[in-house]
């Protein structure tokens, strides 16, 4: 599965939001369930799923599907 698709499914699973409502361009601001605590749960889920460990600054920026995709691709490239 493509990374963007995996991310979309993880985010929908954590937020308990129908996967159809989250698309490749979704942003925290568009989704009511994506509050600051949900943000931490998403980060923990990504850490377990992809074996990454973002810094506090990076965590603060992981607020959209594109941002998460960019972060993960940059991590894998290293």
């Amino acid at each position, binding site marked *: 599965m493509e990374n963007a698709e995996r991310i979309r499914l993880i985010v929908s699973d*954590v937020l308990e939001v129908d996967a159809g409502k989250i698309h490749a361009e979704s942003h925290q601001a568009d989704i009511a369930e994506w509050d*600051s*605590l949900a943000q931490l*749960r998403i980060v923990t*889920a990504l850490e*377990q799923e992809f074996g990454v460990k973002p*810094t*506090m600054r990076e*965590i603060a920026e992981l607020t959209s599907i594109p941002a998460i995709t960019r972060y993960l691709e940059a991590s894998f490239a290293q």
Partner: protein
Amino acid sequence: MNTRLGFNPSGPVAEEFAALRAQLLDTDMTSLGSAGYRALNRQLKALKDGPPLRVAYLGNVTLNLLPPFIAAHCAREGWLAQSHIGNFGQHFQELRSPEFSAFAPDIVLLVLSLRLLRPNAMANFTSLSAPVRQALRDDVLGEIESWVNQALSATRATLLVANFPLPAVPALGIADSAHAYGELEFHMELNLELARRLRAYSRVQILDVNRIASRLGYAQAFDERMFHISKMDWTEALMASIGQEVARHVIGAKGTARKCLVLDIDNTLWGGVVGEDGPAGIRVGHGDAESEAFLAFQQRIRSLKDRGILLALCSKNNPADVEEAFRLRDEMPLRLEDFSARSINWEPKHQGLAAIAADLNIGIDALVFIDDNPAEIALIRQMLPMVECVLLPADPASFVATLDGLTSFEKSAVLADDIHKARQYQEEAERSRFSSRHDSMDEYLTQLQMEVSMGPVDAGSLQRVHQMFAKTNQFNVTTKRYTLGELEAMLHSPEHHLGMAALRDRFGDLGIIASFILVEDGTGLHIDSLLMSCRALGRGVETAIMNFIKQQFNQQEHLAVLTAEFVPTAKNKPAANYFTEHGFRPAANGAGQFYALHKNDVDIQPCDWIKTKGESLWKMQKEYG
């Protein structure tokens, strides 16, 4: 499963919960992971009903991420957890909030971060003098104890107070221990003193966060990023372990521990097969590594017996081989007499387990079964899903850890009664052999030389009485499962009279075997609850108890009528005719089975095979009034 208040244990909704629970009993919860916990919590949310458990979370850290982990582990132990999260840092105010009292928690969790509780002192710890550090310790302890006292009066819940993780690296490095009252000493003494002070309160338990985090490793347990972002540094791995620890405390607080550990024999209690290797060839004891591991396992099993858990054997062997092995290998810590019931034969094991439960007069759902053979475990899971099954790992070195991983034998305290439990069941076996030697029941009862002492429940007996309220199914007229907090409140209420009965006979002391609650209302006295342990059944003790209640009723001139209720359950048939057999008349009104006895109709029934001693239940009032 025990019948619980506010939940109908039969019907489709209950079946849904029971099915999920049976699935969880077979799940290795330690391997769930983030996605596994999410999936499980979605399933729990979809359930409409289950035995409720209300957990309130108070403290000065962000506790919002914790409830799903606690809900998952509590579901495995038979509870559908609901949560109430107090406002950040308002653990005192919360106790007086209407939301908190409306929630009526069963469990209140208090988690405090020292860094947030005393930020200046903790940030400058290395520059504080020893006396200032000691004052800081006393200040923190005082604040917690004051919270505990306020919480005890605000709620009937069991309180779980988290202790403090030690610093993984003290600020002074290895020099820390060279200074009086260093950082480590401070934290260790804080935890130690907290445990000592809170021990005095029966409804308060330490949630040993430090031990759970150490077991996991501090590096895996805490995440400094999360502390700075959200004021909570527990990782999901720690929250999962804490979830299980809370579930252990819930079992202890509710008194729902399973009662008996049933063990296979070959390759479980010792290495090898006694029928083939012979008593001298089985591996247990000192010598080689494998024998040592089986020895350690037997020692751990033995300590369960001291916790009040009954032991039993269920194996496919020739009984004579097993007896010979126990006789010849006397270096084994377990003796054949340690097992209160045995089923050693070639029948399928689900029949053996059923026979053991019947022998011990306990429910099949009170059994845990351990075997090294996956086929036997699979059979029991299929035939008897209410039994908790444990498949031993390949390496006997891990057997002790496997046993320690079991949650279902948790008790909040080991009572004097627990330590003697196995002996009491043995004495029971002697009694039944004794009874078969007597021709008439009357003669048998007389020869038993029973003595029953009845009187008010005192604070020291409250835990045992609570244990009986949680566990007694058969001779229990209303099966009300009062919590320790509720019983404690009744002890101080002038309308409630809590009574208990202790029994001894020629074979030994059976301890406290019955308890009852009488509630005064004007000229009426109502038997709210009356229950008797199954080990006292069939001896006429219930008549001695009713005589005592009648005498107490007679002595109070203002009382005119004694009333009672019988609430039928799947298990309490032995008590169904209790009131009519003791002179009560069915009361016409009401949908349930109500009974009444007027003062003029009271008669004391003959029960001369029992010597009785009674102490008035009204004594306390006379002292104060």
